[in-house]
């Protein structure tokens, strides 16, 4: 079994061994902004994970909304694949507005 397959396996909240499952924590600092990853907590279920996240990450009013997601539910890209995944966008400079020469006299573009 590859590490990827291991990550995918197992159900939400499933406890293997004695260690509590890991949950990733996301905070919305204020309405209008997206939730942002801040770290993780260990907990036996999503309710206690939310409580733990609240205690660990929001003691100074860091946010107004929390998300917790079982870490094993996250499928991450492999760092080794970075080139394959992201390099093809590198030479597509025509996707940027600065690629196009618009005469100085033309305004609002």
């Amino acid at each position, binding site marked *: 079994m590859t590490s990827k397959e291991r990550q995918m396996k197992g159900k939400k909240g499933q406890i293997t061994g004695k260690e509590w499952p890991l949950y990733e924590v996301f905070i919305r600092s204020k309405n209008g902004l997206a939730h942002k990853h801040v770290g993780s907590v260990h907990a036996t279920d999503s309710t206690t994970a939310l409580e733990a996240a609240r205690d660990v990450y929001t003691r100074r009013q860091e946010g107004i909304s929390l998300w917790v997601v079982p870490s094993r539910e996250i499928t991450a890209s492999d760092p080794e694949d970075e080139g394959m995944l992201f390099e093809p966008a590198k030479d597509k400079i*025509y996707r940027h507005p600065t*690629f196009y020469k618009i005469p100085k006299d033309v305004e609002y573009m």
Partner: protein
Amino acid sequence: MTKSGKPKSTTAMTESITGKDSPEAKAFQKKIDADITIEPKDWMPEAYRHTLIRQMSQHAHSEIVGMLPEGNWIGRAPSLRRKMILLAKVQDEAGHGLYLYSATETLGISRDQMIEQLHSGSAKYSSIFNYPTLTWADMGAIGWLVDGAAIMNQVPLCRTSFGPYARAMVRICKEESFHQRQGYEIMIAMAHGSPAQKVMAQSAIDRWWWPSLMMFGPPDADSPHSAQSLKWKIKRTSNDTLRQKFIDVTVPQAEFLGLEVPDPDLKWNKKRDHYDFGEIDWDEFYQVISGNGPCNKERLDARIKAWEDGKWVRDAALAYEQKKQAAAA
């Protein structure tokens, strides 16, 4: 909102109208007035939810259907450079449609429901995409005028009151600027090209000018949802204001190209500090919206065909996943 997150239909609309003075409704409007963004789990009037679903899904559909008139020219682009650019632009439109569908799903409607509404005709898309793209110059005019009008419409939406919509619009506006500039670059090349190219460029502006002005929607006085949408800050600027702004910035751009704007009544008004312009043929607008434009049938048929032809792929992917799960169990 029901427990399953699905929006209720007309009964909920009536409830929210009669419940305008409920404590929740008052608190909601207070938040809007204080420029506090509304997020998916926040309380909202059902009519607000419905208005957003209508507007956002219509916006998403417009991005998706909007790929068709330009897709028409990818295989016939005049150079590899132009072909790569047009391909990238059409890719962007697909991406914009997907950003908007996903933002709309936060309101409790499913992706399949939205697609069904598009295909059955109960959801609309921007009427501009029901016009044909006859020559390469149309790629220039679409980028310059249609995307220019879209940007004018979309920039204020980056501050719309619903968080997921506003965040999607920020991404879209960032990407949209290249679309307009590549279009204007095509227009420069054609307007300064051979006499035949110049004729093509003029014909493109002749055909796309008025439909572009219609993109801002009916005049404020005849726009049924405008007042409430402005009060809820879903809309931030009125149709007529945006249309005027578009005309004011675009006319000098046409002059720079040496092309004629097809409006004999167009004249700079010193007193108003704006261009005066001729009457828009709203009858044409309503005809096109209600299905009688030159390409309505072709566009919808193309979308429905793409959806039906892709069915075996969707089914196969699901069947494969089910097989894997069965094997793991």
